[in-house]
């Protein structure tokens, strides 16, 4: 049973990573705390709900295509937001970035209410994805396996991009030292734009996957942004691999916690977040 729970927690963790990866990436490179991340996620969910019936409805191919398409749509929205607004405040103080991303949260939420109403919506899974791989006691739902695959795919491709491509070297430089990028003779603004777009894309596809996994409504943004913050903070702000471990950890704490301390799991997770923050600071000042 514990094994089943741990496994289930890990699967949930991979999805949490998918949610949080974009946020931590954006913070790592441009130091923007993107409060609108949850809103982009929500947009991804509702857009998928909207367009999936139009694209080969009921087939896995059509389903994944619509998620991908929505990811791209959200990425474009993110791109526009970055180019038109966010770009102006990189050099202003951090609070101005807070104002802008908070404004985006309010705007996206009301637009969601306007277009899709207050009721829960959900995307019906194609039959081919709604089964499970059964191994003895163990049920591995096909759709969750698909989400895990996508999470791993995202992780591997981000890793590969960071490790092997010129763009990745620039990104790593940007994470470590923003001045470095300028020294490398690369336009920092382009790097920020690209990363924000990719981050929005990741939020969008995560939301798309969620639409078929749970039922979604306009209150999704706040819940998701808090979850994403937990993961990003525990993982170390801006640390992609840290976020992976944090996400897996949070998933397992939740899935085991409900067995032993069913009412405390969220408190435990937030305590962990607080302890991690404080511990990091003590270590920093100890240096």
């Amino acid at each position, binding site marked *: *049973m514990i094994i*089943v*729970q741990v496994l*289930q*927690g890990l*699967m*949930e963790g991979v*999805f949490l990573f998918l949610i949080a990866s974009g946020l931590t990436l954006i913070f790592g490179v441009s130091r923007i705390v993107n409060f609108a991340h949850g809103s982009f996620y929500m947009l991804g969910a509702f857009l998928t709900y909207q367009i999936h019936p139009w694209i080969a409805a009921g087939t896995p191919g059509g389903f994944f295509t619509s998620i991908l398409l929505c990811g791209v749509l959200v990425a474009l929205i993110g791109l526009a937001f970055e180019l038109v607004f966010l770009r102006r405040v990189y050099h202003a103080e951090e609070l101005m970035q807070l104002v802008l991303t908070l404004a985006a949260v309010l705007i996206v939420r009301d637009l969601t209410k306007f277009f899709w*109403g*207050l*009721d*829960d*919506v*959900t995307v*019906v*899974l194609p039959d081919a994805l*709604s*089964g*499970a791989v059964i191994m003895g*006691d163990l*049920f591995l*739902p*096909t*759709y*969750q396996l698909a989400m895990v695959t996508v999470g791993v795919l995202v992780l591997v491709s981000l890793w590969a991009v960071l490790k092997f491509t010129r763009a990745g070297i620039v990104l790593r430089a940007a994470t470590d030292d923003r001045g470095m990028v300028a020294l490398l003779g690369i336009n920092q603004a382009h790097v920020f734009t690209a990363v924000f777009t990719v981050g929005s894309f990741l939020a969008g596809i995560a939301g798309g996957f*969620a639409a078929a*996994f*749970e*039922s*979604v*409504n306009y*209150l999704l943004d706040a*819940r998701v942004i808090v979850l994403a913050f937990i993961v990003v903070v525990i993982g170390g702000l801006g640390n992609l691999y840290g976020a992976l471990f944090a996400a897996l950890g949070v998933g397992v704490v*939740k*899935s085991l916690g*409900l*067995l032993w301390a*069913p*009412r405390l*799991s*969220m408190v435990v997770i937030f305590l962990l977040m607080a302890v991690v923050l404080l511990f990091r600071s003590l270590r920093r000042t100890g240096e």
Partner: protein
Amino acid sequence: MKTSIRFGVPLAAALLAIGSALGPAYAAGVKIGYVGGISGACGGLTHSARKAMEIAQDEINSAGGVLGGPIEIVWRDSKTKPDEGSKQARDLILSEKVDLLTGVCSSSVFMAINPIAKQYGVPLFSAISGTHKATIDFGHPFVVQTQPHTLMEGKALAEYAARKGWKNIVTMGLDYEWGRTTVKVFTEELAKLNPDAKITRQLWPRIGETNLTSYITAALADEPDLIMAVMFGSGTNSLIKQGKAYGLLQRTELLTFLSTESYMSLGRDIPDGVHGWARGPFYALTADAAREFVAKYQAAHDGEYPNDWGILGYDVMYIIAGALEKAGSTDPAALREALGAMAFDTLRGELRMRTIDNTFNAPSFIGVTRMTDDYPFPVMTDVNVIPGDLTLPDETTVQALREAAKG
């Protein structure tokens, strides 16, 4: 310096500007104040209640109204926030001078308005919120409950579970008032009705939690006869959706709260064979009045069906009208006496209110989901109507809860 606290003048100017925006209005006849979550978390549920109440209002008014005048309803949005609800209720009382209040929705808004009704002595009819605390623990002469409250529902569920003979049960209750109390009552009552039954595990998902997979695996690990899920809306939706892949319904039975709007939003995603409970499922109502009402509602709203809250809202209007007519005035004391002394023909059958806790003997509806040819979404079939007389807590329980609330 003239300029030091410069914010003062615009502050005052702005406040004066609002000052002239809204004024009190007077009207003859009975005035009902509705405070409910028109927007916010309840927004998705209560629009049907409003439509149904407007239909009832038209019917009553075209039949001559009550107390010689028409019923007027003043609609106010609580935004599903207790503070906003309390504020709107007070304004309805102070400036609209309403004769009584109805609506609510979330239990927190109900609990916020409840003391207001008591403070100003204005009757409050709950149509949409099921917490027992308002009428029992913090009950007072002016608050009336017209639907099965949490204690009644918990007992009805135990009754149903006992009838089915389920033995090993996992409960999955949303970790808040409604979930906790329902699970508690269910557990206690089931122990009386079926001593063989045992709760093997209690799970408490957080409210708003939508990834329930680890709860599902934990519940299934016990190989229970039943998973009793005290959840609603997105929680129930996610549970059913995610449970599918685990063969949840093949491996165990599921009993959960399924009001009509869940069927509407999930549609075919709700598989056949789920045990659901509801408070006013239109399709399970046998009274002629119910059929007429549904037809009328559909005609007025593009073929849309009323949800449970529509049924409850419609009933509340007729309960209010009937009691006012019998009382002969809007005087709260006379109204209460009338309420306790008469039977009401409602869509849910003949109902009566008892005066110890101003609660109606409202029935609970529990059945099994099935996709039929009659509706574009699944509905419950084989509906057990558990009458309120069977589930109302006895007087000693009520007194004990009231004593506990005082300490």
